[in-house]
């Protein structure tokens, strides 16, 4: 059976008390636990998305020697609430020539694709909603809904800019899926499983045990993964689908109000998800730096804090890259993917396999320091 | 407990719909959509029988191969559709009456 949050909590005493409250109906209790945890995660991630817009403005202001938003609330922290209220109260404009069905569907697909990835997100060793055996594979598969949403949003708006942005977005997301998946495959090869629980448990808390420093190939694979992930989330320097200076705003030109908000929210949450996946696969995940048993419940919260902190640091790097590097051209984008990243990723995969055979699966640190 | 026959009924509906789309539509892309439906019906049957009738997973392997073949078929089929459109400037299947040019 797959490890889930319900099967984790059932180890503790208070689970039995809860079961008594529900009259011994395990299915109902499991449903209630899943519901509560899902609501908590969705609320947390929506907050992360909102804070993402705030962080983006503050950090960009910092990099450009400005002050940034500072009027609403302390340090401008409530700016995201003001933005949200503004987006909700805006008029919802439907272009006359738009394909109405697809126009309604596209923002929902973007949001569904991002939120569905959170089902297997490894917050800590026990607090994953569901530790599927095909976790990473599922995440890569379901997040391709976002590419479809970008494409449909661009098509259904029936405008030239949107159409160009949508086509660029779809081709970019399909292309960059290949190096990303190949890099993930190298890690799956090392860990011997596709579940996030397996992959995180193979790494220990200290940096030289992380998969990024396991061998030289995974070190390269991390950068291939990160570059490809940036492109898949349509972040600068790969934000060609919504290139402001060429395409007005790309695929979401015609969207107003909360529909635009859905696209923006999906993008910011997806950046967080991608950072989290990079942390879980390469940077040690939620492991504590000391080697102790984590059956004690409060330690799980410490693990969650470690995980979120690492992901937030990567989030900062993503924003930093956006405000530092200029945008690429379309032909440069495609040649980077097909001529450089994909061959490097294949080389990494083969290299990892050879390393596994040659050194019996030992990491670089184990080879140097012994056991 | 969901019974085997419920899966078979869904698979039959998928198959019949696919055949209807393949016969009734005149657009080449729509015919490819019908083929995808038919292939999915077959793959669903394989997995359902694998769960209810046997202890091994050969049915899963078969449906994986069906998925692979469907992907290859879609790629080649759509390439042919695009080439056809470049020559005839339509994708109406009744226009495909010549073997060359």
């Amino acid at each position, binding site marked *: *059976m797959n490890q889930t949050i319900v099967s984790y909590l059932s180890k503790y005493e208070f689970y039995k008390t809860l079961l008594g409250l529900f009259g011994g109906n395990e299915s109902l209790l499991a449903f209630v636990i899943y519901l509560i945890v899902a609501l908590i995660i969705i609320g947390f991630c929506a907050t992360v998305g909102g804070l993402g817009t705030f962080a983006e403005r503050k950090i960009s202001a910092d990099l450009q020697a400005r002050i940034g938003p500072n009027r609403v609330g302390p340090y401008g922290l409530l700016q995201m609430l003001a933005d949200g209220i503004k987006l909700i109260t805006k008029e919802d404009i439907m272009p006359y020539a738009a*394909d109405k069905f697809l126009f309604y*569907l596209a923002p929902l697909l973007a949001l569904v694709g991002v939120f569905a990835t959170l089902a297997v997100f490894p917050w800590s060793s026990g607090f994953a909603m569901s530790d599927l*055996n*095909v976790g990473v*594979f599922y995440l890569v*598969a379901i997040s*391709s809904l976002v*590419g*479809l949403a970008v*494409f*449909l949003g661009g*098509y259904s708006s029936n405008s030239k800019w949107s159409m160009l942005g949508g086509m660029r977005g*779809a081709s970019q997301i*399909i292309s960059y*899926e290949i190096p990303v998946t190949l890099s993930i495959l190298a890690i799956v090869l090392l860990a011997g499983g596709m579940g996030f629980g397996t992959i995180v448990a193979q790494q220990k808390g200290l940096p030289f045990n992380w998969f990024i420093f396991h061998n030289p190939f995974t070190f390269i694979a991390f950068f291939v993964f990160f570059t490809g992930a940036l492109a898949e989330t349509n972040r600068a320097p790969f934000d060609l689908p919504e290139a402001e200076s060429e395409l007005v705003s790309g695929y979401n030109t015609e969207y107003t109000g909360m529909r635009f908000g859905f696209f923006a929210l999906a993008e910011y949450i997806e950046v967080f998800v991608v950072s989290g996946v990079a942390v879980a696969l390469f940077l040690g995940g939620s492991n504590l730096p000391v080697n102790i048993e984590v059956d004690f419940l409060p330690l799980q919260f410490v693990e969650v804090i470690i995980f979120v902190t690492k992901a937030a640091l990567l989030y900062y790097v993503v924003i930093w890259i956006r405000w530092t590097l200029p945008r690429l051209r379309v032909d440069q984008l495609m040649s980077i993917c097909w001529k450089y990243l994909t061959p490097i990723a294949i080389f990494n995969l083969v290299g990892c396999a050879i390393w596994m055979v040659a050194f019996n699966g030992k990491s670089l640190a184990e080879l140097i320091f012994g056991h | 407990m969901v019974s085997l026959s419920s899966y*078979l009924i*869904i698979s039959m*509906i*998928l198959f019949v719909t696919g055949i*209807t*789309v393949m*016969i*009734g539509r*005149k*657009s080449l*892309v*729509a015919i490819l*959509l019908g083929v995808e*439906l038919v292939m999915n019906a077959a*793959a669903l049957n394989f*997995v359902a029988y*694998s*769960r*209810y*009738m046997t*202890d*091994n*997973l*050969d049915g*899963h392997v078969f*449906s*994986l191969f069906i998925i*692979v*073949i*469907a*992907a*290859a078929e*879609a*790629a*080649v089929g*759509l*390439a*042919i*559709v*695009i*080439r056809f459109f*470049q020559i005839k400037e339509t*994708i*109406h299947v009744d226009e495909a009456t010549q073997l060359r040019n």
Partner: protein
Amino acid sequence: MFVQILFGLSALLTVGCAIALAATKNIMHSCVFLLGTLLGVAGLYATLGADFVATAQIMVYVGGVVILMLFAVMLTGGKDFVSKAQNLLGLAPTMGNKWTYSLAGLVSLVFILTNVKLISSIVKTAPAKTFTNEMPSTVSQLGHLLIKDHVLAFELSSVLLLGALIGAAIIARPKKNQ
């Protein structure tokens, strides 16, 4: 209980989207309904305990085939972008008359009844399988099967994919002298 609910939702999604696919005139909407059908079939795989097949279905179809179809629709959208009155009930007039339809209906009825008879006899005579609600992971078993029992088909499918890749690239490439 979860399995029944998931089965019901997936079946509804599959059948509803399949019928909508056949009924709608707009080919772009047909492609989106195909997406719904495929996601529903993936859900049905999940209720059958086929986790890897379900995920592969989502990966290949949502990420690849549906986007490819949408691209093809956009690249070939011309004067007859909306196909001419070929929905489920208003089939094109040249497709046949009442005699051909009734004959085909009779033949398919006989065919279906024969098949139902055959299948039911197989189901009845098959040894009763010890059936559990447990759904163990299929990933490692599938890996062993693919690399041991079905290795020839596995390699052949990789050759097929390579051939399809090259073939599609060559066919879709515009000729130089045009």
